[in-house]
């Protein structure tokens, strides 16, 4: 048990420190790296409470894909020069009240949820259906997700699909005069239409590409 708590406090300390460093570090790329460290230590915590499936999915989705895209975007913006101009700007004090309100709201929400879960566990009837300890948590997650909550699951999938289509529509533009490769065209080209022998008169030349 002692070893367990040592590991727990190590991972949570790393998680909290790196979460603070995400906002505190001057270089934006460093922020993203701290965010990745945060994700990794949180997935370690997930694995410690026995939710190994969630921990691995956290690693695959957040660290393996989302954070890579974050890095991708942040590295493209030339952030080496603009080291946190946002905080250095004069009117940055304007944003502090809004930030305070939002963070207080989130804090109160967490208190309500965790308090309810702690003192009135019977409200959360999901707890009772999860108590089949003979199954691994991948199995029990699958059994709940694909039976009781199939509609919610499908709807969240649809929402993600719509978001994806929306992103594609927003960034897709058809430009005129751009030469694109068509594989079918390239493959089905024959010698007769590809090569042409011309008699070229002196000092006249020929026009191609018409």
């Amino acid at each position, binding site marked *: 048990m002692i070893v367990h708590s040592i590991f727990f406090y190590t991972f949570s300390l790393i998680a909290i420190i790196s979460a603070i460093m995400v906002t505190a570090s001057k270089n934006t790329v460093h922020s993203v790296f701290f965010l990745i460290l945060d994700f990794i230590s949180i997935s370690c915590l997930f694995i410690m409470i026995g939710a190994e499936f969630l921990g691995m999915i956290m690693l695959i989705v957040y660290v393996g894909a989302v954070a890579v895209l974050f890095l991708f975007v942040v*590295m493209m913006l030339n952030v080496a020069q603009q080291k946190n101009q946002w905080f250095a700007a004069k009117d940055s004090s304007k944003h502090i009240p809004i930030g305070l309100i939002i963070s207080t709201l989130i804090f109160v929400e967490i208190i309500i949820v965790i308090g309810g879960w702690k003192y009135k566990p019977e409200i959360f009837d999901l707890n009772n259906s999860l108590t089949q300890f003979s199954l691994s948590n991948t199995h029990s997650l699958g059994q709940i997700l694909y039976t009781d909550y199939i509609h919610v699951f499908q709807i969240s999938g649809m929402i993600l699909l719509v978001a994806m289509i929306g992103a594609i529509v927003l960034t897709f533009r058809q430009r005129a005069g751009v030469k694109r490769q068509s594989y079918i065209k390239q493959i089905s080209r024959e010698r007769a239409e590809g090569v042409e022998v011309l008699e070229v008169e002196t000092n006249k030349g020929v026009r191609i590409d018409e």
Partner: protein
Amino acid sequence: MDYLSIIFDQVYKILFLLIPVLVSVAMIVWLDRRVWAFVQKRQGPNVVGPFGLLQSLADALKYIFKEMIIPSSSNKVIFILAPIVTMTLALIAWAVIPFGATQVLADINVGILYLFAVSSLGVYGIIMGGWASNSKYPFLGAIRSAAQMVSYEVSIGVIIINVLLCVGSLNLNDIVIAQKNLWFVIPLFPMFVIFFISALAETNRPPFDLPEAEAELVAGYQTEYSGMMYAMFWLGEYANILLMCAMGAVLFLGGWLSPLEIYPFTLVPGAIWLILKILLLFFLFALVKAIVPRYRYDQLMRLGWKVFLPFSLIWVVLTASFLFYFNLLPTN
């Protein structure tokens, strides 16, 4: 005292796994160069030791005694961290590879997800190296590699789903045992081919070695590295290739199972069979490097997103419907 003995036991097991892996990485580099040379009617490295077997050792010595140059405009912490990350991630994944029914370091429930997660983290070493070098070519290499690895991960994930549908468990040993009667390479052959090609792209091997395309980007993300740090990138890359071969062997070629369950074959321990399968896959990797020209970047992206992803998704639907219709879905 109890804890100490557990720790010693684990350290002993880890060393017993890691040292062979590191030695075989060195040997596999030699094998790669030899195969490449024979395809091109050359001799390859054949001077140091018998058949040139000690060539990698000589190379390693050379790298150790070379100067490590850290560019003055680089981001030094991340610059040094990058090869370490690559190397570590390539090695920790070996913890879950089963070499026999009980010969596995960590027999965890979500083994295949762990493998997938670690192999998808591999991109960080490259991105960190490319960004921290603070130079054009490494940066371009890192960007290319990030896009490429994220794209091909998707199709590898879908292929893994195909295998999981037939097994009904995420444990690697269960996946191996499920192939006792029929290796998955036979019913899922198209998936095996796509897995092989995606593995080439995931490990930045030719014909998908665009992150380090020497004709365009000098050496890609490794341009600014020298000495031991370069050697670590190099070792990490080959350890990753071996890992991908091991993953292919476990998912499709029956892992540590012998090809026929009859007398002379069952004498050979499972670890030998697994190593032979890994070597077979690696031989294919080396052949592909020698005989195929490099892809263009847009062709690479097209192949990943427009060909492999839809095809493997359709195959998931087919596999699932087939298993459902003939009542073959695994239940446990």
